[in-house]
């Protein structure tokens, strides 16, 4: 009951997702479509679960006046403000939740966090990266060329530099990415089949 039913559910949902591709019969498509719709609804509940968990954990800290509780209070208030305005006023263009909270709070902070990562990856590379082998040299040269080729003075350094960088991005880089992608695809297919057939059961936990 605790392990067999989940494995059976995984098998049924997984198999129907696969056979709808190989047997595109209307009846199969209908069943697979219904199962997929159910899965979408269940996934949306998982988001609610995640939000409830955030509220529960941070709310408890605020209630107990635990460490950093003023920050947790800010988190809870921000969450409640977004949910209360978003649920009743919607999140479409023109709504308070979208135009004020999302565009003036979420977007600036998200892009600043991504932007500040430039400093962290540069300093991490500076501290950890040492050119000890020729492969490391190849990596460094490739990185420097790509960075140089994407600044306005690239043309002045060497008229062909932007085109060479474009070639590096479109050819050797694409070859490497393609190799990784093929490997990842094979891995994902194998893992997917193992999960569907009940060989891989780690998602069920230990109990």
């Amino acid at each position, binding site marked *: 009951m605790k392990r067999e039913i989940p494995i059976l559910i995984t098998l049924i949902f997984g198999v129907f997702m696969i056979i709808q591709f190989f047997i595109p019969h209307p009846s199969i498509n209908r069943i697979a479509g219904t199962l997929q719709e159910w899965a979408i*609804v269940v996934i949306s509940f998982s988001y609610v679960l995640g939000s409830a968990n955030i509220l529960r954990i941070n709310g408890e800290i605020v209630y107990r006046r635990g460490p950093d509780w003023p920050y947790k209070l800010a*988190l809870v208030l921000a969450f409640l403000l977004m949910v209360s305005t978003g649920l009743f006023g919607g999140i479409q263009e023109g709504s308070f939740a979208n135009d004020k909270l999302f565009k003036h709070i979420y977007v600036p902070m998200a892009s600043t966090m991504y*932007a500040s990562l430039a400093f962290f990856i540069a300093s991490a590379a500076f501290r950890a990266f040492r050119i000890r082998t020729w492969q490391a040299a190849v990596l460094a040269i490739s990185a420097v060329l790509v960075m140089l080729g994407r600044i306005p003075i690239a043309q002045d350094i060497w008229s062909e530099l932007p085109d060479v960088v474009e070639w590096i991005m479109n050819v050797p880089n694409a070859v490497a990415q393609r190799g990784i992608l093929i490997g990842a695809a094979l891995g994902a297919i194998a893992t997917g089949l193992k999960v569907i057939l009940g060989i891989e059961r780690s998602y069920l936990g230990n109990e």
Partner: protein
Amino acid sequence: MELFWTSIAGILTLSVLSFLYADNPFYKAAEHIFIGIAAGYVFCAQFHNVFIPNLWTPLTQHGELIMLIPFALGSALFTRFFKGIGWISRWPMSVIIGTYAGLAVIGFASGDLVLQVQASLIPVFVPATIDAFTTNMTFVNFLNIFTNLLFTVGLITVLFYFFFSLEHKGGLKHVALAGTTLLMIGFGAGYGYTVMTRIALLFDRFYFLFVEWLKIA
């Protein structure tokens, strides 16, 4: 009023940037507000885009009682909060895992594996590239001669590097080495590209701070 919200965005931007100096209360506050707003937005997006059209409307307006099954399965996720019946949450988890696993098998096989292999089944040399080089002797035209060779033979060397059923020694060592070299070029290009993307984003933030908010530039 617009200035008020622009100022909020400006202050939060500065608060996030302040982490470059050291961890501080401004950054911590901004970080927590960010998580709260992001979680709230995802919650609302799921409510309006999934819960209402996929569950509530079919159930209440179209009388599709079968939708009570996903509703019950979704609600079962919350049994995680209760010790004795927490195992029931495995059922909806299995729905999610099974669906994703099935879609991943087909998606990766048809979308990635087959298409990527197919795109590499091309002639090793294209005579037109040699003609282009002889008429216009640029370095890029010279490199273009090897484009298809890299996409075919180069890809095999990259894949061979990840193939561990054969020991990489003798001649095979050089094949794996060629694969590693291509991988290193790829990693370097990826690193450089990531840094430049982040720098572009940083300029955008500075533009917002100095031009749109403070209007001093």
